[in-house]
């Protein structure tokens, strides 16, 4: 179960537009396996845990975790967390699992449920509350009794085996008997204290008749002797239990041509029966007559459900296979009163609210339960519950205004009771059935605690609300989400947050004081005492969180149309201009590697080198080699501890450092902030590796290393760099820019080598550096900077394409395009699509390329040709200048909507500023 709900978790998880960052920035996170394991264990162990947790309900210490009225931008909802693994382990109540990366992944679109920190915190909190004493069977079976104005219902959760699968059930008015109907069964059971007792078998006679093969059954709520069944062969049968003979069959209506799906008695009128059939007709019968009184034609496909309104005497609702719901007045068989489309696909069921006269609940194949307010002129959808399977039946819970019970048509065998105001998690569920539940009914009109159900697994159950499992127990009401701009929202139970003593107050934590106290609902059996949540929003520094660099880079980069060297130079300049020195260096390197083969003069090289390293003296590169090694070891250690956490925040080295620190603070973690250097160090390793390789390869012929190294003495000349650097290493508050400067230095050493290398590069195969370039791209992508990775990929084209596997490329492209589109850089995203070499990406802008146009005369859509309307037989788009039909590009003025051939209009507007059509409008052509 846990697994299933995990999959269906609420949509509200997502920040508007957070997906791409998470996808790209967290691509390296190893969360999926945990997620999978989590859902896997949910089913097996979860059950036991659930029983264990039942007893806790008495204490009423569960948080409800309701959250509403939040500023929509910060809307966060709750999901399951890994912490139910603790609940699932009642044998070892003391054991707290090691707080691993407790991340749960919503399976839809890679949304991120919970943060490690929250998980860990809640693990701690929860483990103390686990009740070690497992609930005994006896306790569970304890009787429940409720007073119902003198009439007391008592009973327990119990079941009985039927001989055959049930299709429908219905109860007698006095709540003491239940009728079960199916293809091969039609029996009445009385509901005793301890068990069901078979009272009557209505299938009499030797020969099985299709008239007994029931699709639906209904017991009259006024007359306890009266029943009606709908047979699969299209017959409607009424039964009179008062008959003295064995055969209680009363009337037979064979008017429907196809299977009758539903029968319904009028709530107050004894003799009025309504039926809805596959043939698309509804018929109203007067039981005193032999034939139907009136026939209603839905004018569409099969009728799936018909229900008399409880309050409006004359009204009934009918639901259809095509997704429509119709309201009829019983006196007017010629036409429905109103109709609206409720679902996509068949509407299997509907139910009028017992108290609120205007509310109609519908359930459909599209897995939705919707509640409609019919009081207004247009049916208005007021609530919507998304379930995990097609909804077969819906039944409002008596006495609880917002509760509704549902069961599904396929796959899912449970019965859920939802609070429609809280659509993401069922407030209770019954898991007893082994096959799909086909019929549910509340035992008494005014008792919300007894539910009866029949199922395809040939059992009839009475469920007591007290024994229901409550998924909320297994859900952890905590949520974490990023916004597009790096803001972070975190919501949790208030008690959890305040009780966490490890938390340091953090200035950046602008916690929004949005807390909720839920009013206790007196009709609810389970008390939700602690039901407030806290939402914290951590805003990133405007400066560092700003994505301006991304937008600027995207706009200014040149990706094609010029020689490689120029492209690289240009892009390097762009990056440089935005203070992204490392990226700038990468571009310069790429140019050297790929385009300098014999063509670029050494002066050029020096020039570019000078450009790239204006901030630091050249020779720094070599002493730096020693310094970061110390840092490196430290940061490696850090990484082993906190990689999963730090990396998901690390979008770009410069923009997220502060953001990251925020998180560290809130988590109370002690990961040093200078891990960034460690990341760069990894890059540096690569560079040095090359550093060693190249000279070795060429040493015999050229004595280049000697040429490069004697310059070492300059280190002393420039001690400031060293100090500077150590400073940073000590300080926990490195600013993003400074860190970047540091990280740049190793790159210098590389460019140095490249230069020397340019002297002999002609001997090297052009793809010699491909592995390194590949690693560079991977590095950028891992860091969350897909922009660089994709841009390089496009610029280099075939030179590098084969080095990186297709899927990774595709992943990068989609991430980058997604990001561009989030920033509304449509043109650039299209350019990227066009330039990409991935087939999957390329075809992105070949989909939905149809441009629908309407005729300018009759305003109808034009079918096949763009210039002649089939309906009004006129040419739609005439050129205002030459009065001929425009068959190609049609250009028009948005002010007066006149236009014509592009050439003509251009020419015209050169000489005149008025519209060529003579309408007097001053057209503008830009």
């Amino acid at each position, binding site marked *: 179960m846990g697994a299933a709900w995990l999959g269906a978790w609420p949509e509200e998880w997502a920040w508007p537009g957070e997906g791409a960052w998470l996808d790209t920035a967290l691509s390296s996170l190893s969360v999926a396996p945990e997620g999978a394991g989590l859902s896997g264990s949910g089913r097996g162990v979860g059950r036991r845990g659930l029983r264990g947790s039942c007893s806790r309900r008495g204490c009423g210490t569960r948080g409800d975790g309701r959250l509403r009225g939040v500023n929509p931008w910060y809307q966060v909802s709750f999901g399951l967390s890994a912490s139910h693994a603790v609940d699932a382990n009642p044998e070892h109540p003391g054991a707290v699992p090691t707080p691993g990366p407790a991340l749960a992944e919503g399976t839809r679109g890679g949304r991120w449920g919970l943060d490690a920190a929250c998980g860990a915190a809640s693990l701690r909190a929860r483990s103390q509350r686990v009740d070690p004493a497992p609930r005994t069977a006896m306790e569970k079976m304890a009787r429940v009794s409720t007073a119902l104005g003198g009439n007391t219902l008592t009973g327990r959760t119990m079941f009985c085996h039927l001989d055959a699968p049930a299709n429908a059930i219905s109860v007698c008015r006095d709540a003491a008997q239940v009728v079960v109907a199916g293809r091969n069964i039609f029996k009445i059971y009385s509901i005793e204290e301890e068990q069901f007792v078979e009272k009557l078998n209505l299938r009499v006679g030797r020969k099985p008749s299709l008239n007994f093969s029931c699709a639906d059954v209904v017991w009259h709520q006024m007359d306890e002797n009266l029943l009606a069944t709908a047979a699969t*062969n299209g017959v409607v049968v009424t039964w009179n239990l008062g008959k003295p003979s064995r055969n209680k069959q009363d009337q037979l209506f064979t008017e429907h041509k196809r299977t009758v799906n539903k029968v319904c008695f009028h709530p107050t009128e004894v003799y009025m029966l309504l039926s809805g059939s596959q043939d698309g007709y509804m018929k109203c019968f007067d039981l005193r007559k032999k034939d139907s009184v009136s026939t209603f034609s839905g004018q569409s496909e099969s009728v799936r459900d018909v229900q008399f309104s409880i309050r409006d005497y004359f009204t009934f609702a009918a639901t259809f296979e095509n997704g429509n719901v119709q309201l009829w007045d019983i006196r007017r068989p010629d036409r429905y009163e109103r109709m609206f489309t409720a679902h996509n696909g*068949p509407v299997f069921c509907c139910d009028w609210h017992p108290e609120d006269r205007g509310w109609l609940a519908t359930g459909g*194949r599209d897995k939705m339960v919707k509640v409609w307010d019919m009081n207004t002129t247009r049916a208005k959808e007021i609530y919507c519950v998304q379930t995990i*399977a097609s909804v077969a039946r819906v039944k409002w819970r008596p006495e609880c205004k917002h509760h509704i019970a549902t069961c599904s048509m396929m796959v899912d*065998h449970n019965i859920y009771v939802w609070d429609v105001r809280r659509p993401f998690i069922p407030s209770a569920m019954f898991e007893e059935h082994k*096959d799909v539940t086909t019929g549910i009914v509340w035992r008494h009109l005014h008792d919300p605690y007894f539910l009866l159900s029949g199922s395809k697994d040939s059992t009839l159950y009475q469920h007591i609300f007290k024994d229901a499992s409550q998924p909320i127990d297994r859900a952890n009401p905590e949520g974490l989400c990023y916004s597009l701009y790096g803001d972070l929202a975190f919501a949790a139970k208030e008690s959890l947050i305040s009780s966490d003593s490890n938390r340091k107050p953090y200035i950046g934590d602008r916690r929004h004081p949005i807390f909720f106290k839920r009013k206790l609902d007196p009709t609810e059996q389970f008390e939700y005492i602690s039901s407030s949540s806290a939402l914290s929003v951590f805003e990133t520094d405007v400066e560092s969180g700003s994505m301006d660099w991304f937008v600027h880079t995207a706009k200014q980069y040149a990706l094609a149309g010029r020689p490689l060297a120029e492209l690289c130079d240009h892009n390097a300049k762009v990056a440089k201009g935005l203070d992204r020195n490392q990226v700038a260096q990468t571009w310069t390197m790429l140019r050297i590697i790929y385009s300098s083969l014999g063509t670029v003069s050494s002066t050029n090289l020096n020039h570019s080198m000078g450009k790239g390293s204006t901030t630091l003296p050249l020779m720094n590169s070599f002493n730096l080699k020693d310094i970061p090694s110390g840092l490196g070891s430290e940061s490696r250690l850090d990484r082993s501890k906190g990689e999963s956490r730090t990396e998901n925040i690390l979008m770009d080295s410069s923009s997220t450092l502060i953001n990251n620190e925020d998180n560290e603070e809130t988590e109370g973690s002690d990961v040093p902030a200078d891990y960034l250097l460690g990341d760069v160090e990894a890059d540096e390793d690569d560079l040095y590796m090359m550093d060693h390789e190249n000279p070795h390869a060429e040493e015999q012929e050229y004595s280049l290393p000697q040429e490069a190294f004697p310059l070492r003495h300059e280190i002393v000349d420039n001690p400031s760099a060293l100090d500077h650097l150590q400073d940073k290493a000590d300080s926990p508050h490195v600013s993003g820019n400074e860190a970047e400067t540091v990280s740049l230095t190793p790159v210098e050493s590389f460019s140095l080598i490249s230069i020397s290398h340019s002297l002999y590069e002609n001997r090297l195969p052009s793809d010699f550096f491909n592995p390194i370039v590949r690693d560079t791209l991977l590095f950028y992508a891992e860091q969350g900077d897909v922009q660089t990775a994709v841009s390089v990929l496009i610029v280099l084209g075939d030179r590098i394409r084969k080095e990186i596997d297709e899927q990774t490329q595709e992943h990068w492209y989609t991430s980058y395009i997604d990001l561009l589109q989030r920033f509304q850089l449509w043109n650039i995203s299209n350019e990227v699509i066009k330039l990409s070499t991935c087939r999957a990406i390329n075809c992105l802008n070949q989909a939905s390329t149809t441009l629908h146009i309407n005729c300018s005369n009759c305003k109808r859509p034009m079918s096949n040709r*763009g210039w002649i309307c089939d309906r009004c037989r006129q040419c739609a*788009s005439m050129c205002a200048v030459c009065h001929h039909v425009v068959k*190609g590009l049609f250009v*028009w003025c948005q002010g007066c909507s006149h236009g014509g051939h592009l050439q003509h209009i251009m020419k015209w507007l050169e000489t005149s500023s008025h519209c060529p059509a003579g309408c007097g409008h001053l057209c503008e052509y830009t």
Partner: protein
Amino acid sequence: MLVAGSQCCPPGLEERLGCGALRGEEDRGIAVPPQLGRGPSAFIPAEEILQEGIESSRRQLLIEAFVSAGRVDNITMVMGLHPQYLSSFWKTQYLLLRMDGPLPYHKRHYIAIMAAARHQCTYLVGLHMGEFLQAGGNPAWLQGLHCAPQKLRNLNEINKLLAHRPWLITKEHIEALLKTGEHSWSLAELVQALVLLTHYHSLASFVFGCGINPEAGQDGGHGCRPPSPHSDSSPTAEDSTGCSGGRDAVREVEALMERMQLLRDSQREEEGVTQEEMATRFEMEKTESLLVAPSDVTEHALQSGVLCFVEDPEFGYKDFTRRGEQAPPTFRAQDYTWEDHGFSLINRLYPDVGQLLDEKFQVVYNLTYNTIAMHCGVDTSMLRRAIWNYVHCVFGIRYDDYDYGEVNQLLERSLKVYIKTVACYPEKTTKRMYAQFWRHFKHSEKVHVNLLLLEARLQAALLYALRAVTRYMT
């Protein structure tokens, strides 16, 4: 100012024309056996299909099909007689073969080959061998099933059952495939495979039922055998076809119209029929379908080229009511319907295809031009329902709310023979069979029958398969 592009001829059409490798081959002139004649179908005169002034919607469709597949194959040409259906069919097939799905592209084509080979449909096998190679499949696999990976070979059993006796599929078969292990299937993969298999089994029915000719340039390395081995066996049939079929044929149509009217009238009065009678009628129809089996069940030489994809080639359709064999209970349509159960399941495991299949079933079930032969403005729903239900009846699916007596009234014996043959052993379809039923009807109407057949068969097999999956899951 805005610039809008006027709609015109699909761009790039010409280039594609040029690059279509198959077109090239056609030009080089692969010898087409003369007796096959020209045109997409051996049964239907080419002029019927390639009318000059085909309506624009249909042409649009063909162009679309051409652009997306690089060719318009003969199936598409014939189906083009019913453009409304064709577009739905195309969308589904496109999704199955070319859109994202759990199975890799080349395996999809290989599964198509396996399915088509079950009915010895050289046409489809050849077509998908090419597609398989284009999708980057390993040519070695084409040597036969024994060269394919174990995982695909495991599918053989269910392929065999689905093709010939779908009612034998149990949850154990599903279980065996999903059992974790080296060659196991995932549920999503399996569902796609099941849809593919049933799709191609029934498409094979269509190919034989309409006598689809091999593509020009398609030799598939098996010589130019006609797809239906018997299509050349009855030169006399030619004479009895045609609208000149004489007064007999006209009378048949009139009789059919009368019977339909009669049934419509009697429906209101007929209440005396007992349930037992109804049940017997269904059984009658089932048993009778035994007798309508084609008489010329001569074992024809199996084609080696296709045979390599088939294991246990002797396995064929067996009437489940046949004595001696333990007859499984009749499948009650109301207990497991496509609309309620089948769709819900498939939509869960392979989301988009559920919607498209649903749409396709609806289109074909509701497709009508309100014409019968030369009569217009006729409500044909009764006739269509009879055909649909008869196909389902042949596969053991019974509708409680249907009087199977109607089938007897509406479907003449030669039509029953044809339906049964095409649905159960399409490889035995002959031109004579095609020609003998509904002699006065238009070819497009016969194609319509074939479409109903295709979809009804697809749904029947799919229902059995999905029911097994459901049982496995519960």
